């Protein structure tokens, strides 16, 4: 059975009292008295559904997603590469899933060995000395790294420059870079870029004795390898500051070039970009960081270590005794099941495979850029002038946007062709950032080119096709402005079945009846949370007013 057309009711709307999809054996011990004053009068109002309906519901929802498994997904900066099946198998191995994180080191030697291998491999890939596997994602890696940098400069026996609290970042930096600085209590200062590259004169002017680091992305967010990076590193190092690399774009250079070799002191990886761990509708990822040895004393506890064979105790262990460490940045010690997939991917590829991956990612991006540039302007890509892109490129399709066609229209039209839209409006307004990854076949790349050229043609001849895209039978373009103006962030407390459904409109005749959205579209102000109207109630605003900065 295929998923129904039209909206799928919420799981709460499929609830029928008394249904259950899971059961437990009867209690086999004597009951003890419950502490009455702590008890809740009734359990939380969760849905009550049978197992088949549960399975059908989440199977139908899955059918409403684009995914790498089903679609070309050229989302720039996100590296939507193929997620190998064997990695999922590895992560589901009971020898790993059933490990408790507080077990003795002696009980978890296989897991620790795996983490230890990965630590060494990532250090080699980075060209740096030490790795911490703990951060939960790229942004958390940035945060952890900035804390490490701060601790180093605060240490009188090392960096000894507590005044270094300024962090520089190019104006094309990913939003997490400045946001991570704020969370660390550091000031972030924008460095201008020209032609997609860091403006060196501006950088020289901005670097001073209060500068802790520059956060760069290289290849950068415009899809270019910044060839001045070694000069950038020199400028920072001469001023006593450090160079941080946002490793989101490592897929272009793994095995080809090592950040440590071009002057980077500290960096993060995104395993969910470079090393094929799946994005899972938004997460989980992992953001290991790599550092030069002078920064390693400050890494979070614990670190995985290997004992010399002569000394007693298990071969691999977690080292909690790190007096200069910044402490903990999360519970336990990492996104283990993600790191396990990362291990499995690196192991499968091997040194030659990794390099082949990077080269193919770059090849595919340049191929697409070369084939599209006549219709989709590529400001930084011009093979005649020997200006190539790394693993992704941006296009600013100005001629197509001359009429009343918007970038969003182009993006939404791609959905009709089964292609996930590229990243939009970043790092510059009205750009598409296209990253095909190494995974795709030539046939898929060529198909994408055809689709893009078709859409370019449509933009000029049939713009209405774009304006109303996507033309899916189940749902048209959604009103995101309305969603933000009148936030409905949870289903109403009352079972929605009690609300009169709207009569199906003519267009909907052949579909399932529209779900009962009446109460949601016009939220009843008297209804208590969770459906609330932030605009009307006025109570969602007081703390967002001017004058109060966000930490």
């Amino acid at each position, binding site marked *: 059975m295929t998923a129904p057309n039209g909206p799928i009711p*919420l799981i709460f709307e499929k609830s029928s009292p008394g249904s259950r999809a899971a059961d437990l054996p009867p209690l086999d011990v004597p009951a003890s008295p419950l502490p009455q004053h702590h008890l809740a009068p009734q359990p939380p109002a*969760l849905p009550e559904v049978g197992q088949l309906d549960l*399975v059908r519901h989440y199977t139908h929802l899955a059918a409403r997603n*684009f995914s790498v498994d089903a679609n070309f997904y050229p989302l720039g900066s996100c590296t939507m590469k193929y997620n190998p099946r064997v990695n999922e198998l590895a992560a589901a191995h009971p020898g790993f899933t059933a490990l408790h994180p507080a077990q003795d080191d002696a009980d978890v030697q296989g897991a620790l060995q795996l983490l230890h291998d990965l630590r060494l491999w990532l250090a080699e890939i980075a060209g740096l000395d030490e790795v911490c596997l703990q951060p939960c994602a790229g942004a958390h890696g940035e945060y952890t790294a900035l804390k490490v940098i701060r601790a180093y400069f605060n240490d009188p026996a090392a960096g000894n420059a507590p005044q270094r609290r300024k962090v520089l970042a190019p104006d094309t930096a990913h939003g997490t870079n400045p946001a991570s600085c*704020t*969370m660390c209590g550091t000031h972030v200062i924008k460095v201008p870029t020209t032609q997609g590259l860091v403006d060196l004169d501006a950088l020289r002017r901005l670097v001073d004795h209060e500068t802790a680091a520059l956060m760069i992305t290289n290849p950068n967010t415009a899809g270019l390898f910044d060839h001045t990076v070694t000069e950038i590193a020199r400028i920072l190092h001469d001023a006593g500051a450090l160079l941080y690399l946002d490793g989101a774009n490592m897929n272009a250079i793994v095995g080809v070039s090592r950040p440590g070799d071009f002057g980077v002191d500290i960096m993060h990886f995104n395993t969910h970009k470079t090393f094929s761990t799946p994005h899972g509708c938004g997460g989980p990822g992992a953001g290991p960081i790599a550092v030069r040895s002078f920064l390693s004393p400050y890494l979070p506890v614990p670190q995985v270590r290997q004992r010399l064979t002569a000394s007693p105790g298990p071969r691999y262990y977690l080292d909690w005794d790190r007096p200069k460490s910044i402490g903990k940045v999360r*519970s336990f010690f990492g996104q283990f099941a993600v790191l396990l997939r990362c291990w499995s991917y690196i192991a499968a590829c091997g040194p030659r495979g990794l390099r082949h991956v990077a080269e193919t990612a770059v090849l595919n991006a340049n191929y697409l850029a070369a084939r599209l540039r006549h219709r989709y302007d590529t400001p930084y890509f011009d093979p005649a002038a020997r200006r190539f892109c790394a693993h992704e490129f941006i296009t600013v399709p100005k001629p197509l946007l001359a009429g009343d066609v918007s970038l969003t229209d182009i993006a939404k039209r791609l959905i009709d062709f089964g292609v996930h839209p590229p990243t939009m409006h970043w790092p510059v307004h009205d750009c598409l950032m296209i990253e095909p990854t190494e995974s795709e076949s030539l046939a898929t790349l060529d198909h994408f080119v055809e689709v893009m050229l078709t859409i370019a043609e449509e933009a000029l001849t049939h713009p209405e096709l774009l304006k109303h895209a996507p033309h899916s039978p189940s749902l048209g373009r959604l009103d995101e402005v309305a969603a933000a103006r009148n936030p409905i962030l949870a289903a109403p407390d009352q079972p929605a079945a009690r609300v009169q459904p709207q009569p199906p409109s003519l267009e909907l005749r052949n579909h399932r009846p529209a779900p009962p959205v009446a109460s949601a579209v016009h939220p009843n102000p008297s209804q208590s949370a969770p459906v609330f109207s932030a605009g009307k109630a006025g109570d969602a605003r007081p703390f967002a007013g001017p004058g109060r900065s966000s930490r």
Partner: protein
Amino acid sequence: MDYVQITPEQRRSMLQAIGVESVDDLYANLPPEARLSRPLQLTGLPVGPSELELRAKLDQLAALNRPAAAPGAACFLGFGAYDHFIPAAVDALASQGAFVTAYTPYQAEASQGSLQAFFEFQTQVCRLTGLDVANASLYEGATAVAEAVLMALNITGRRRVLAAATLHPHCLATLRTYLTDLPAELVTVPACASTGAVDTEALTKAVADARGDTAAAVVQSPNVFGILEDWPALFAAAKSASHAAGHPQSLEHPGPLAIAVFNPIAAALFKRPGDCGADIAAAEGQPLGIPLQFGGPYLGLFAARAAFTRKMPGRLVGQTTDPQGRRGFCLTLQTREQHIRGAKATSNICTNQGLLALRATIYLSALGPAGLRDVATQCFHKAHHAAQRIAALPGYSLAYTGDFFHEFVVNCPCPARRLIDAGRQRSVFPGLDCSRLGIGSDRQLLIAVTEKRTQADIDRLVTLLSEVSPS
């Protein structure tokens, strides 16, 4: 196997289409000193890693582990990570490629599956916490608590954070890291040595000492010893002490905020954070259908009162409509987030724990209200049965008198270490050595009992403890 599909032949034709001779030409921007002129040296890498060999290597590594939650083992380990029953449907549904290999649902029309699931998740978390708004997940428990505290600092403009000493030590340590270098001060509020719960008077005093500068009071229940804290009394005390000190609470001056660190299974049985005066609730969501998997990835749960919506960290899914008025979902209130707001964002979080949130959603939908309460109730009764039998053994006693949920500390007549080592041959994992966790002595065991443990498992535990000689 590098999973690349482009053939050498195709590569040549693609290079031609670009107008270059070799891939090296495409790296023209790489300065020579930035080029690696040798192959990477990946030590210990299995050679010739075909899938078959890779799987053999993974099996070898897995075989070096002794998993506490393996079939046949009796696992009494807790400390924030619990061995609960996971219905088969959770794995089956959450491992669909359409969920596993999708990105963050920025393109709403291409992501309705994830978006609706997260909307259901947010609704479920609201109902578990008794609060108005929940986000679509944070990384894990400790960072979720840290985010709650940062949010409270931001909302109140105050500096002092009062954290119960009975918070999970990793949570407390993470909080400490997050607060250093910020204009904030962390003060821990001690627990009563006999009950194992936070002392209301100590909290009242800490609030008074802060002289109106208390941004938040953070209390975990069940706490790290498994003891149920008296949230209503503690939160009321924090607020009234602040009031008494001449700092009444109002919309403009909302401090101090009450932050409840909860257990989502316990929420099916006991009063929820929102029912106890909490303004923000944060939790480790691992118990909701997520395997132990050596500590991660887990799931950060986060909910707050509606008034604080625009100060919340993380993604929010909202309901909206298409041109035909049909209901759909999209990410919303994104002006809070880093990709719009940069340095002024409410948090730096970008990638979150989507797939784990999906697991939790399916788990909660599978169990339903009765099932989840059943899980909680069985945890309670099994833990209490085990505790009574252990306390009846010569030399053993419960360390604390407070009411507990499914975890408790016992004083042992011998080093806990010896019991743990003796359990190894019998596949009994009797608990954790409190000295190793930093929450007690080396003669104390922290024991957790979930619904998965049978009477027979508990017999094995009691037998182990009774047989290991105290000498």
